[in-house]
C-alpha cells in the first residue's frame, strides 16, 4: 500500500514537473505545477510531516500558484501566452539538465544512508521523531511540536534528556521571517501599484 501510494505520488510529481518544462502554454504550465506541488504534499504526508504537507497545500497550491495564475492573466496578451525558445537552447538545456540529474542520482545512490544513520544515532542519539514520550511517531501530530519549536522550546529533543543543556529553538528565525514578510508585503504593494504608463514603445 505504501509502495503504491509512493509510486502514484512520485510519478505525478515528476510527471507534472516534466510537463511544466515541456509545455509551451503558460496556463497549462500553471495547471501542471498544481499537480506537481499537490503530489509533493502527498509525499510529505507519507513522510509523517502532516503540518508541512498541509502548509504546502495551503500556501503553495492555494496561494503561490493562484498568485502566478493572476500574473498569467494580467500579462497574457495574445503572443505572450506561448513564447517558444529556440530548439537549440532547448536541446542544450535538456542535455545539461539530464547530465546534472544523472550525476545527482548516481551520487545519492552510492551513499550508504542506513549505515550513516546508524553511525549518527550512535553519536548523537536516536532521531527525535522516534524518541518515545511527548508524542509518538505514527500518530503524525507534528503541529504542536513545530509550534513549540518556533517559540523556542524543543519538547521533542529536551524531554527525558539527562544533561541540563537545552536544544536550540527557532524563535529568532521566526521573527526574522516575520519582519521579512512585512517588508515583502510593503515592497510588493509599492512595486505593483497602479501608475501611469511611462512610455508606449511604438515598435511593438
Amino acid at each position, binding site marked *: 500500500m505504501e509502495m503504491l501510494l509512493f509510486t502514484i505520488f512520485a510519478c505525478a510529481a515528476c510527471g507534472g*514537473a516534466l510537463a511544466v518544462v515541456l509545455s509551451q502554454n503558460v496556463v497549462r504550465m500553471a495547471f501542471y505545477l498544481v499537480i506537481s506541488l499537490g503530489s509533493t504534499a502527498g509525499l510529505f504526508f507519507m513522510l509523517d510531516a502532516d503540518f508541512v504537507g498541509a502548509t504546502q497545500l495551503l500556501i503553495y497550491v492555494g496561494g503561490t500558484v493562484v498568485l502566478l495564475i493572476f500574473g498569467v492573466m494580467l500579462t497574457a496578451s495574445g503572443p505572450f501566452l506561448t513564447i517558444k*525558445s529556440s530548439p537549440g537552447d532547448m536541446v542544450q538545456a535538456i542535455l545539461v539538465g539530464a547530465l546534472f540529474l544523472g550525476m545527482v542520482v548516481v551520487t545519492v545512490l552510492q551513499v550508504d544512508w542506513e549505515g550513516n544513520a546508524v553511525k549518527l544515532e550512535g553519536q548523537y542519539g536516536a*532521531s527525535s521523531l522516534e524518541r518515545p514520550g511527548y508524542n509518538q511517531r505514527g500518530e503524525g501530530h507534528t503541529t504542536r511540536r513545530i509550534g513549540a519549536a518556533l517559540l523556542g522550546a524543543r519538547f521533542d529533543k529536551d524531554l527525558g534528556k539527562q544533561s541540563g543543556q537545552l536544544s536550540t529553538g527557532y524563535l529568532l528565525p521566526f521573527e526574522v521571517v516575520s519582519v521579512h514578510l512585512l517588508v515583502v508585503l510593503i515592497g510588493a504593494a509599492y*512595486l*505593483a501599484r497602479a501608475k501611469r504608463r511611462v512610455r508606449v514603445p511604438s515598435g511593438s
Partner: protein
Amino acid sequence: MEGIGINGFLAVGAVLFACGVICMATKRNGIGVLMGVELVLNGANVNFVAFSKYGPLGLDGQIVSLFVIVLAAAEAAVALAIALNFYNNHLTIDVDRANELQG
C-alpha cells in the same frame, strides 16, 4: 519501511530540482521562470523532509522546509510585482527583451 527508503524520495527531489533548473534556463516567459524557481525550492523541500524522517535530523528538517515555503511565497509575490511592472513599461513579458541595462 522495507519498500521505499530514503533513496526514492531523494530521487524525486533530484528530478524536481533538475526540471526546475531546465525550466528556469529555457522559458522565455517571465512567469515560466518563476514556476521553475518554485520547482527548485520544492525539490529542496522534499529532501529536507526526507532527511527529517530517515536521518537524525528530527523535527529541524520540517521546520526548515516551512521557512522555505514561506520564503518561496514571499519571493513569488515580489517577483510577480516586478514582472507586472516590467509588463506595464515594456508591454511584453519576454525576459529576452529585458536588455535595457545591457552595455
